[in-house]
């Protein structure tokens, strides 16, 4: 499984990449592989406030329904609207075009509490 070194991870299989002080969020290669073909994504409205650990999106695959949790607290600054018509981007490119949303963090130091690539790799192997 691919686990890029440039970002942080949660034990619920989300990734977060810090960009310009904001956190871009998606699900890991391991998560998309376990879910199978993704067919629908329910994304939050821009401007919503989310707490770390709360449900921020839902993903339906041909197999099951999964929740995506916010790795940090903050305000939804942007969502990947391409996922609405082409949710298969999540399977094809989970760390790139398959991103979910961007959060304007309440407290950027929360990122330090997330797993690094080595820690996440240890969790899934």
């Amino acid at each position, binding site marked *: 499984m691919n686990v890029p070194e440039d970002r942080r991870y949660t034990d619920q299989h989300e990734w977060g990449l810090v960009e310009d002080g904001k956190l871009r969020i998606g699900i890991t290669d391991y998560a998309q592989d376990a879910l*199978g*073909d993704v*067919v*629908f994504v*329910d994304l939050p409205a821009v401007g919503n406030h989310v707490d770390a650990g709360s449900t921020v999106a*839902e993903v*339906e695959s*041909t*197999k099951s*329904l999964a929740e995506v949790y916010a790795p940090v607290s903050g305000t939804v600054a942007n969502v990947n609207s391409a996922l609405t018509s082409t*949710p*298969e981007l999540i*399977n094809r490119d989970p760390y790139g075009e398959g991103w979910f949303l961007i959060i304007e963090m309440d407290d950027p130091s929360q990122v330090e509490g997330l797993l690094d690539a080595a820690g996440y790799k240890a969790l899934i192997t």
Partner: protein
Amino acid sequence: MPSQSPLHAAHERLGARFTDFGGWEMPLQYEGTLAEHRAVRTRCGVFDVSHLGRFRLAGPDAHGLVSRLLCNDIDRIEPGRAQYTMLLDDGGGVVDDIIVWWLEDADFLVLPNAGNSDEIVERFRSAAPMGTRVEDRRSETALIAVQGPDSAAILDQAVGVHPSRFRVEAGEGPSPMIAAGTGYTGERGAEIVIESGHAEAVFSRVVEAGARPCGLGARDTLRLEMGYPLWGQDLDRETTPLEAGLDWVVGWDHDFVGRDALARQRDEGLRKRLVGFALEDRRVPRHGYPLRAGPAAGSVSSGNFSPTLEVGIGMGYLAPDPGENVDSVEVAIRGEWIAAPRVNPPFIGH
């Protein structure tokens, strides 16, 4: 320990992901359910369905047993044909839905569902008089389904036989087999019983001829698009074939277990009725989600994403019977009631 198909090692080499189904460890998918679904709709796929029951029923009373125990009328067909039918209980509830292959006058192959096989075998054994044999063939054979618009050419090349719809034919060539023009996908194709020792060779020839290996994930979305019921979800002992909208499976012109109860229900009305529906977006209705239409309520029996229509589709039971005139239902998806036009399956044009 779950049972394994004679093709298990072949699936592992193909990178299959497995799931438990009726006590059997069977491929859920190889590379992906959507691609496998589309392969069957546009070209051809091959499924290992060795978990399904299959037993030989032969002897002087074989025809009589099939006729008395099963609700479809075997005399609607003739030897060399297959028929979809059901075993009901005295109350008309569906104990199992079954395919019967009529091989020769007094020789049948009966195919119940995986999880019901032992019970159906037992029912036939205890009803069979001396001289009529019930031989469970599940441990000595594999069963594969080759399905899709290109299946005839692939079957010709790989196994030398492609039975037309509901016809049963013995295979030619080096591997003993029996094939029937049946399936669970809505596409042309065949289901083939093969001696276990030849199963890998036949499966490989079918794959080499161009059929894509497909798992039970795609089998489920394919059958749902056709509105075909799955026992345990859409059918069970609490449900009659009339409530399931499967009146055509009931052969009223003969006597069978459960006939009196069904006849009463036909006269007095249904307790509940199966309805189909299609959402207007990609949201996915799933088994157990609440369903309603006016005063009628119930739950989704089967639901998933339709890869062909690219919307969520499903079916479920409503009680009291909402009748034929209800043209819209509501389904609760994660607590939110969503209106969905009623659709009488099949959901896709076939």
